[in-house]
């Protein structure tokens, strides 16, 4: 009795569950939306492996060969540019060395010319000074000569005047030579003062 009740109850519950499913509008067995289905996995695998194979043997080599070629070309160009740069730097250094040499030469030429000019100038100055000194010495000699002549003339005339005056004072001829010596001494001593 109890067993049959239980069986009936179980049947009733299963029919109830079925009714519930039908009410939810889902008559077929509930499919899990998470789990993968075989047909989709099959096609995903086929198409992905096909893409992989194509990529490995057909698609990618065409792209990477050109990319590698370009990379190589860029590297070569860069190396060439670097070589050109090195060469340029070397040439620049060479040019600058030449320029420095020329500049040093110019400086030395200027220095030499300046020294030469200095020497010339100094020489001319010396010559002019010597000339001036000679002229001055000549003039001094002339002056001394003139002075001496004037003095001797003066001395003679003074002696004459003084002797004449003294003869006139003392009324007797004087020793002309002694008087002239006195006068001469006097003139000389007065000329010195």
């Amino acid at each position, binding site marked *: 009795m109890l067993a*049959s009740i239980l069986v009936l*109850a*179980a049947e009733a*519950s299963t029919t*109830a569950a079925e009714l519930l499913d039908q009410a939810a509008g889902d008559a077929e067995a*509930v499919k*899990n*939306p998470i789990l993968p289905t075989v047909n989709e996995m099959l096609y995903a695998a086929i198409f992905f492996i096909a893409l992989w194979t194509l990529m490995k043997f057909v698609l990618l080599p065409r792209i990477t060969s050109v990319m590698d070629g370009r990379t190589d070309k860029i590297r070569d160009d860069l190396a060439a540019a670097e070589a050109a740069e090195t060469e340029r730097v070397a040439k620049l250094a060479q040019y600058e060395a030449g320029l420095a040499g020329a500049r040093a030469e110019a400086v030395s030429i200027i220095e030499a010319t300046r020294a030469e000019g200095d020497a010339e100038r100094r020489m001319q100055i010396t010559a002019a000074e010597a000339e001036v000194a000679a002229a001055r010495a000549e003039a001094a000699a002339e002056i001394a000569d003139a002075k001496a002549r004037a003095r001797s003339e003066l001395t003679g005339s003074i002696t004459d005047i003084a002797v004449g005056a003294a003869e006139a004072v003392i009324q007797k001829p004087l020793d002309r030579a002694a008087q002239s010596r006195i006068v001469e001494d006097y003139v000389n001593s007065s000329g010195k003062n």
Partner: protein
Amino acid sequence: MSMLAQVTTAAEAVALTAADQKSISAAGYAGLAYGLATLGPGIGIGYLVGQSVQAMARQPEAAGMVRTTMFLGIAFTEALALIGFVVFILLKFV
């Protein structure tokens, strides 16, 4: 026989409520599961990206490496939240 019919209707009622109970509680737990699953990864990704930005700001020359590692870290951290999402779908719709 009338007693059997009574038992049947009673069992039917119990079965319905059991199914209802299950779907209702599953739906409730689905939201709870996803909500809980977002907490850790949310904190983790925020911390991770913040530290990465700091690292990039301090050393901009290492930005590329930091970015790659940041994406890797995000991927690992995010996995937990996504597993929570899957659990949500399983509880809610299955």
